[in-house]
């Protein structure tokens, strides 16, 4: 009986993962693909450091890392953590936001890499 319980664990995990992929995939192909908002990481800073978005609408941040090392785009408020290797561009989908200010930062250079999203 114990063994069955043990073997059941991976099955649960596999189904969880499959469900996750199934749920996330259609969003990526983007039926109503929201427009991307470009942000560049340069010299350990975000350019621009403030982006304005429309409240109540999901959007995509297209973050390009022009530095020679990885950076992690992180927002505690938005529960986003995304490593962007040197010279890479990552699309980060952000849920619809209520009006307000949502700070984000670069985890690997948090002294200088600070920015915010303003939803209006």
């Amino acid at each position, binding site marked *: 009986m*114990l*063994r069955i*319980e*043990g*073997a059941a*664990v991976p099955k*649960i*995990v596999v189904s*969880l*993962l499959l469900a*996750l*992929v199934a*749920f*996330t*995939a259609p*969003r*990526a*192909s983007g039926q109503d693909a929201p427009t991307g908002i470009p942000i560049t990481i340069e010299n350990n800073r975000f350019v621009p450091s403030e982006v304005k978005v429309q409240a109540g609408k*999901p959007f995509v941040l297209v973050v390009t890392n022009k530095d*020679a*090392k*990885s950076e*992690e785009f992180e927002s*505690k*408020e*938005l*529960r*986003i*953590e*995304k*490593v962007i*290797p*040197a010279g*890479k*561009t*990552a*699309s*980060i*989908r952000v*849920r*619809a936001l*209520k009006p307000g200010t949502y700070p984000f*930062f670069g*985890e*690997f250079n*948090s*002294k200088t890499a600070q920015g915010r999203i303003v939803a209006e």
Partner: protein
Amino acid sequence: MGATFVIVLREGFEAALLLGILYAYLTKIGRPESRRYVTAGGVLALAASIAMGVAVSVISGPLADLGPDVIAIGVVFLAVVLLTWHGWWMGRHAREIRGEVQRRIDEAHARQRLWLVGLIAFTGVFREGAETVLFLWGLLVQAEGVSSWLALVGGVAGLLGAVVLGWLVFQGGRRLGVQRFFTATSVLLLLLAAGLFSTGVGKLQGVGLLPSGDPVWDTSWVLDDHGALGGVLTGLAGYRARPTALEIGAYSLYIVLVGTLFFPALVRRKTYGRSDVTAPVAHRQI
């Protein structure tokens, strides 16, 4: 140098804690030979982290955008499932393991899939592994001037710091009495798993799979979860300065429901106590 030290230490802290506990745990139950599963899990996770770091550096497009998120969420919930299983198992067998004399659990139980403990080690190391690899790699690539070399030294020192921490947990755990060790680690792992569970829920909210909401409270003015202490508490017990209602709900529900799995004796004692009290009262009323 200090900054890179803190970053790597923070990333490695959870993994070190888990590995230390798992090594001590297998020693305690008299299965030191099974520690190889933990070592193998850790080494495989390191390899997987490097592979993942290389993959996200090479691959572009939707796979690179989506893949890491799906994997991150998958690993979090896998860790929760495994830790729940482990805690449940420890709770069930706590009584047999309790006596110092009869602490070598019998063969039938030992054949219980101890390799799953290795899988816990894997998830623990892999969770922040790729990130740490990319961070350190970035430092290495950029190491030109004195300050960037110092940054690299700080990063490596952070990694060593995490290793030392894990070793201290292992040594400390070995010295604790069996019962104390099991109680202490059960509490730690319960908090850790509850924190992971609410982190997973938060991540699902982040990608929009679960409805999000405003933070219920904001304690960042007392303890920011991005600071050193706040960061440690986040890794250890899932501390959040601005939690959403769903995260709080997930955390509490996990503590209550899975807590009864981790500490079955506690629940049993309580229910007996209650029935003892209520029965005579009922009689008197009749």
